[in-house]
C-alpha cells in the first residue's frame, strides 16, 4: 500500500525552481534514500513533504490511515539547539506533542512510549542528562527517539549523519536499517553518502532538481550515476 505519493511537484525556493516536476511513490515498509549533490533540491523536497514549504504546483498525498496523522521528522540541526538547556527526557517527551493535544499534561501512555523509545535506542541511562552535554551521535539518537514518539510508521530523516565520525555514522545507519527491517518503519532519508545509502535502502531517488533516477537500489547501482559516485569499486 502506498504511504506517500508525489505527483508532478514543483517548488520554488528563493525565487528559483529548486524542485522541478518530481513524481514518485513510496510503499509501506520502503526504505527510500534521496541522494544528489548540494543544491539538487533533496532537502527542499523533504521539507515540502513535511508541509514546511509551499508547493508551486503538483500534489503530495500522505496516507493518513497509515501515518495516523503524524510523521516522525529528524530535521537538520539548528545552531540554536547546540546549547539548548533541556534534558534528554524533555526532548523525547516533546515527540508526543501531537497526541497530547490541548491536555496540559502528558498521560501515562505517552510517558510509557517515551520510556520504550529511550530503551529502543539505548539512551535510557542518559535520560536525565542535558542535551548540550551529549556527543553528536547521542544527540541524533535523542532526536530519533523523539521522532519515533511522534509515529511508528513513517520516519523522515534529513542528513542525519552530518558531522558524525565514521564509527558513529555506521552505528546510526545500522539503527535506521534495523528499524526498517525488524519493525517495518517506512523510512525516507536524505543523504549524500551514496555508498551507505545503497547498502541499507531498497529504493533510491537521485535528485538534480528533476528526478534523475527513481527505482530499486539493485537497478541503481548499474546506472552511470552510481558508477561515477561509487567509483566502480562496489
Amino acid at each position, binding site marked *: 500500500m502506498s504511504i506517500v505519493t508525489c505527483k508532478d511537484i514543483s517548488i520554488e525556493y528563493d525565487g528559483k525552481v529548486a524542485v522541478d516536476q518530481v513524481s514518485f511513490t513510496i510503499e509501506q515498509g520502503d526504505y527510500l534514500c534521496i541522494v544528489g549533490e548540494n543544491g539538487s533540491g533533496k532537502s527542499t523536497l523533504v*521539507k515540502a513533504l*513535511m*508541509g*514546511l514549504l509551499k508547493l508551486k504546483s503538483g500534489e503530495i498525498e500522505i496516507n493518513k490511515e497509515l501515518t495516523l*496523522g*503524524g*510523521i516522525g*521528522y*529528524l*530535521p537538520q540541526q*539548528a545552531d*540554536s*539547539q547546540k546549547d*539548548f*538547556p*533541556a*534534558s534528554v527526557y*524533555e*526532548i523525547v*517527551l*516533546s*515527540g508526543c*506533542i*501531537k497526541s*497530547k493535544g490541548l491536555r*496540559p*499534561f*502528558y498521560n501515562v501512555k505517552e510517558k510509557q512510549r517515551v520510556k520504550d523509545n529511550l530503551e529502543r535506542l539505548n539512551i535510557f541511562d542518559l535520560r*536525565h*542528562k*542535558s542535551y*548540550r*552535554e551529549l556527543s553528536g551521535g547521542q544527540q541524533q539518537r535523542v*532526536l530519533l527517539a*523523539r*521522532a519515533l514518539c*511522534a509515529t511508528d510508521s513513517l520516519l*523522515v530523516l534529513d542528513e542525519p549523519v552530518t558531522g558524525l565520525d565514521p564509527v558513529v555514522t555506521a552505528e546510526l545507519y545500522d539503527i535506521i536499517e534495523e528499524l526498517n527491517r525488524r519493525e517495518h518503519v517506512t523510512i525516507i532519508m536524505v543523504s549524500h553518502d551514496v555508498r551507505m545509502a545503497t547498502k541499507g535502502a531498497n529504493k533510491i531517488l537521485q535528485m538534480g532538481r528533476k528526478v534523475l533516477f527513481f527505482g530499486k537500489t539493485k537497478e541503481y547501482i548499474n546506472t552511470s550515476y552510481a558508477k561515477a559516485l561509487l567509483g566502480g569499486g562496489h
Partner: protein
Amino acid sequence: MIQTLQEMLSYPFISRAVIVGILVSLCAALLGVSLVLKRFSMIGDGLSHVSFGALAIAMAMNIAPLKLSIPVVVIAAFFLLRLSNNSKIKGDALIALISSSSLAIGVIVISRTTGMNADVDSYMFGSILAMNDDDVNLSIILSITVLILFVLFYHQLFSVTFDENFSKAAGINVSLYNMLIAFLTAITIVLGMRMMGAMLISSLIIFPALSSMRIFKSFRLVVVSSAVISVICFIIGMIVSYQYSIPVGASVVVVNLSVLILCSLVGKH
C-alpha cells in the same frame, strides 16, 4: 532588612508597586527563557520603545495609557514576528529601525504637547509613582492571565522553542504559538514598562533567563529558577532603591547583573 521591607510596605503606593512588580517579573522571566533561546531577545527591547511612543500619544490625547499602549504593542509584536521570519530586512535591523522610529515619534509628540518634563523622565527610566489603582488592578488581572496561559501551553511552548520544524511536521500550529509568545511578551512589556522604564524593561526578560541557563541543564529547572531569580532580584532591587533613593528600574537591573555574574562564576565550576 525585614524591618525596611515592613516600613516600605506601609506606604500604599509602594505596596502596589511591589505586587505589580513581582507579577511582572514572574511573567517576564518565564517568557524570557523562550525569547532568549529563540534568539528573540531584541524583540523585548523593540517593543518597549514602541510602548514609549504609544504612551506619549496616549498622554497627548488624554487616554488612559494602558488602554492605548496594550493594543498598539500587541500589534507591533505580531508585526515584528511576522517580518523577522520572512522579510528582506533582517530581524535585528528591523527591530532597531522600529525602536528608534517609535522613540522619535514619542519624543516629538511629547515636546509638542506637554513638553519634555518629569513625565518623560519617568517613562524612560521608570517610576513607582506612575500607577494608580485602576492600573494596578488591570496589571494584576493581565499578569495572572499571562501566567495561566504560560502554564497551560508550557509543553507546546517548549516544543516550539526547541524545534519549530519538528513541531510543524508533527502537526502543531507553530505560528499560533509564536503569536502567543509575542502576545504575552507584549502585555508583559507594557505592564512592566511604567515601573522599569522603556530603556530598562527588556533586562527583566533577558537577565533571569541567562542567569539560570548558566547553572541549570533542563528546561523545566531553567524556567522555574529564572522565575525565582527574577522575583528575588526585584524585591532586593526595590529595597535598594528605597534605601538609597535611586530609581527602581536601575537598581533592579544592577541586582540582576550581579546575579548573572555570580551564576556565571558558579556555572564554570
